[in-house]
């Protein structure tokens, strides 16, 4: 009983205090809210340490067992340990850490994101091959119009047919796309609100046994 009641009581009271602190800017509610959020960040940081140790354990186990993916695991373990030691030694603002961040991590992230452009394009081409219906045709037509309409003015002047395409692309972005995104966001916001309220009222208890 204690295992269920205590976590639920803590979750509900903390949630209520943070919510009230957000809505009612009357002292000391905002201060309590700030403290509780700080504590949540601390707990999140400890979760990071747990996750990091688990990552090392999984990949060390894979290295020990051998087989497929051994080289990936070796790189993961080496990079995780080396960077950890370097940042511990020099601090996160140290020269080596910053060089790794700017010279390796950031370009790597950019490369992966650039890859998503290619995979998205391939997915779009595959869509028309696999599913030939009105939805797919419309999807690809809009993608094509948006891509062409995004060509910079310096490359192709916005005249004639190009001007029409740019106008259509702009209208698609400002009207149906924005309307759709707002509708989607509204529904999601309601879902988030109700999911949060269920946790706040203790109707669902993801933190304990239910």
């Amino acid at each position, binding site marked *: 009983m204690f295992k269920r009641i205590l976590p639920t009581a803590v979750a509900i009271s903390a949630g209520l205090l943070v919510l009230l602190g957000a*809505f009612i800017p009357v002292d000391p509610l905002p201060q309590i809210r700030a403290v509780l959020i700080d504590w949540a960040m601390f707990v999140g940081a400890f979760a990071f340490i*747990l996750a990091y140790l688990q990552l090392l354990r999984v990949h060390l*186990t894979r290295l020990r067992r051998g087989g497929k993916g051994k080289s990936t695991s070796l790189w993961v373990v080496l990079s995780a340990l080396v960077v950890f030691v370097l940042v511990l030694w020099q601090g996160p603002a140290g020269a080596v850490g910053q060089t790794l961040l700017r010279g390796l991590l950031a370009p790597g992230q950019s490369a992966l994101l650039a890859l998503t452009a290619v995979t998205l394009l391939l997915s779009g081409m595959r869509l028309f091959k696999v599913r030939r219906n009105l939805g797919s045709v419309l999807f690809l037509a809009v993608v094509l119009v948006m891509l062409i309409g995004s060509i910079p003015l310096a490359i192709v002047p916005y005249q004639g047919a190009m001007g029409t395409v740019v106008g259509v692309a702009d209208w698609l972005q400002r009207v149906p796309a924005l309307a759709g995104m707002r509708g*989607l966001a509204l529904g999601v916001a309601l879902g*988030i609100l*109700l999911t949060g309220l269920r*946790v706040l009222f203790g109707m*669902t208890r993801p933190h304990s046994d239910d």
Partner: protein
Amino acid sequence: MTTDLWLRPLIALGITLVAAVALTVIGIRHRQAPPRYLRDFPIFRSLPGEVGRAAEEGALIHVTLGSGALTGEDAMTSLAALESLHALFDLAAAYDTPPLITTGDPTLYVLADDWMRRAYTRLGNPERYRPALVQFMAATPATYAAMAATYLSEKGSGTTMMLGAFDQEVSLLTDAVIRHGGRAIGGAVSPLGLAPLFTLLEPQQLVLGEDLFAGGAEATQRSVFWASLGVQDFLRWLLVAGMVLTALFSVLGVGGH
């Protein structure tokens, strides 16, 4: 300026209070029998079938939960994804065919690990739980998606389930699913995440936006989840009515700017 400082939080508080009261009333009213609404979620009903198939074929189920941190704005999205998979966790523990669960956030990893472990504990088999089956892959979304995609190529996968807070990085996963085969289901709340999923999945395999928050109702069949969906519908119509009235008043010139 001063009015705005009070007005917006008051409106938000008002909506929250209305939702809270509606949830309480509808929850109490439908405690005995869950209310059913005109919504069909074949994707969530298919999850137990996937576990059965995995048990028969010896294939792996790969669940990717995205990078939604429990300390961030995607917390409820990640929680909704986990709730949708509740029945899958219980069945997988019963068959002892646990899925490989990958996350892109440490706090989500801790929660997913706890849920999977508790599924085994509920069955009285806590010692059979293998911690390596819930993994935190990487802290950044693109790296996480790339790492999860490499798992598909290394381990192969019977079914890939992509449910949670995804943006365009999910296209790396969808590409891996296409190249390595296997079944897939997915859902996201962000348009950036939905676009790649739309190109891969049939309508009955895809969950769009707020429907992700309906998974808990189908998975658990508990009245509180159905009541929550009912309140969502009620609030949506309330907001739609408010928007239509505001637009009408604006057209008629009522109420100033």
